[in-house]
């Protein structure tokens, strides 16, 4: 697919009135200090990387947006959304059990770890999980809920919190103190992304 917003880079506005000091500081931290592994085991980390590569592929990107490190950091810091469903375990356990169950599913079907499966097998397995079809090992939350509500939503949120992803979809990015002037349909300000026609 050709680039939709050729040449557009949100970070090109770093020194413009669209970026204020506090936003620069926040983004500098996100871009500069990618957290190290603290929560997951090495095996879990590698599995997450493989899942990430399949769910949010970035093969076209020279510098992929880090996703696994931020999930690890969230769990290591005990952060989360601040609420749990009655009867479901805490986030740390949901993630550990869910990842183990995905690998368990791969072994049950193919006698192999998930990371050793090729893309078509990965896709078929994940589609079954999305449809709720899976074997044992899913204590706590079921396969669909783990895959969609935990794994996929977390990964998508992290990916689309990165300036490179904002540039990819033509999002204006930070906008303070300068916001926008041309609000009408089909109009854009000079500091917004131009779309390839």
């Amino acid at each position, binding site marked *: 697919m050709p680039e939709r917003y050729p040449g557009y880079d949100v970070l090109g506005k770093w020194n413009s009135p669209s970026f204020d000091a*506090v936003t620069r500081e926040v983004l500098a931290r996100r871009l500069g200090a990618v957290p190290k592994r603290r929560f997951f085991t090495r095996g879990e980390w590698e599995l997450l990387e493989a899942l990430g590569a399949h769910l949010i592929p970035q093969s076209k990107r020279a510098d992929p947006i880090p996703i696994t490190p931020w999930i690890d950091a969230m769990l290591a810091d005990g952060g989360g959304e601040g609420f749990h469903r009655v009867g479901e375990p805490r986030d740390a356990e949901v993630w550990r059990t869910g990842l183990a169950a995905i690998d368990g599913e791969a072994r049950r079907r193919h006698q192999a770890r998930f990371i050793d499966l090729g893309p078509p097998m990965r896709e078929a397995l994940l589609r079954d999980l999305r449809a709720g079809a899976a074997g044992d090992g899913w204590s706590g939350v079921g396969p669909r809920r783990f895959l969609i509500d935990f794994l996929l939503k977390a990964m998508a949120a992290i990916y689309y919190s990165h300036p490179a992803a904002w540039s990819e979809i033509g999002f204006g990015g930070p906008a303070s103190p300068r*916001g926008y002037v041309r609000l*009408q349909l089909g109009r854009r300000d000079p500091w917004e992304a131009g779309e390839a026609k």
Partner: protein
Amino acid sequence: MSAGPASAHTTRAVAGRAPDVFERGGWTPMRQNADREAVDFAIVGTGAGGATLAAKLAEAGFTVVAFDAGPYWRPLEDFASDETEQGKLFWTDERLTGGDDPVELGANNSGRGVGGSTVHFSMVSLRFRPEWFKARSRLGYGTDWPLGYDQIAPYYDEVERALCVSGPIRYPWGPRRRRYPYREHPLNAPGELLARGARAMGIKWSSTPLATVSAPRGKSPPCVYRGFCIHGCSTNAKQSALIVWIPRALKAGAEVRDLAMVGRIEVDAAGLAAGVHYHRDGEWRFQRARNVVVAGYAIETPRLLLNSACPAFPQGLANRSGLVGTHLMVHGGNAAWGTFEEEVRWNKGPPNMAVSEHWNYEDRGKDFHGGYAFMCQGPLPREWARTVAGTRGLWGEGLHAEMEKYNHMAGLGPVCESDAQARNRVELADEVDSYGLRIPRVTYAFSDNDRRIQRHAVAYLSETLRAAGGRDIWSSDDTSHLMGSCRMGDDPATSVVDADGRSWDIRNLWICDGSLFCTSGGVNPSLTIQALACRVGDRIAAMARRGEL
């Protein structure tokens, strides 16, 4: 109660001063009160209800201390243009959610900080349809509120003036009213599409009355349409409680205590509230008070009342009726989304710039009671990605392709009324939080009528989007707002407080926030919460003059 958590922030409202929300690093003088000296009012929570009441009571000459569990922000220096960073605005202490339709909590509906949820609200400032205050007798469902529209109307006026609400010259629904204090905002593209769809469907629409200024006001500059409203307004255009009511309260002599979590209300031998136990700067303290007001929103308010159970009130305070925590309501937010040929760029401007209240005011042709307003939408990428991934279950190139349509998307989201049901409630779980306080458990299930409203909304909004030129229409489920859980009423057997927010059981214990609602109506609640708070403030002042406190 345990030692409590170490806080990432430090208390700012100390040593006779509070942050000046309009200046980077600025301060403003603040009167302080000693814990041991009883103040007239201790208010728990400084959001739409608590901050408004604090200003009103301080201006009426009462001594007031208002507590908030969260930090005291200076938007200009603390708010980044970033969804992830601004997660710091939300109440993310542990809570449990269950029932047939578990409500998404956290960022979806509650804030934590001085100014409460108005710091991150989207500023939609709508009045209730008058009949909703008498839903049972006028419309045949739900319950009647213990007050009517005529009693609340002057306070709607007062709040609209206090917030300098920007709105149209003529709002198409509801009784005749004076014009909004500030002129309406120009429509953004999603608003234009709502208008186009409404015209095609033959219904009325309007630009949305918003609590963000369309022209300068004091130290607030006009809105610059940056669109980060629900992540905090970094310019102070938004007329949140933090920048409107709190400065007014301080000026009138109120004290605000930030990062001060109230854990228990103390009741004395006479069965009256004696003050509040609160956790601040690493220790539990006790503030004496002649009156206590609970304004922690519809989950934390009943939680505090239940957590304050004592030998005289073993079921929790104000709970002889057993109703504390019950009749919780949310709004259904089942939105429709579509792709447009034109560039929409929906991130520009406040998210809800146009509205239709057609189905709030039209009673014919419905297979349900109640109604809904609907508005255009403008989610930012992180939130949008969660909606797309969570609802569509898309990944891989499918997800990328859908997300790349970001600038061509538009959506219509409803505020669907929900029935007040006893089974939808807040209770205490056995588990405790880092303060050692039992955490709340929220149970929720929609009624059949709720589902019929939501089905109607999804079908109608999808059709409207299509009529506006949208294609590939799909919908997502969501909820917003919290109401009820300590309803007001005329009868101590069927309500927790009276029309003034005064509890039936403990006459110097008051409630003043979203938990007072008897019905949810089909509009966002904050204008009504603030109007109720203004009324409670005036009523308390009048009762004090008559020696009835």
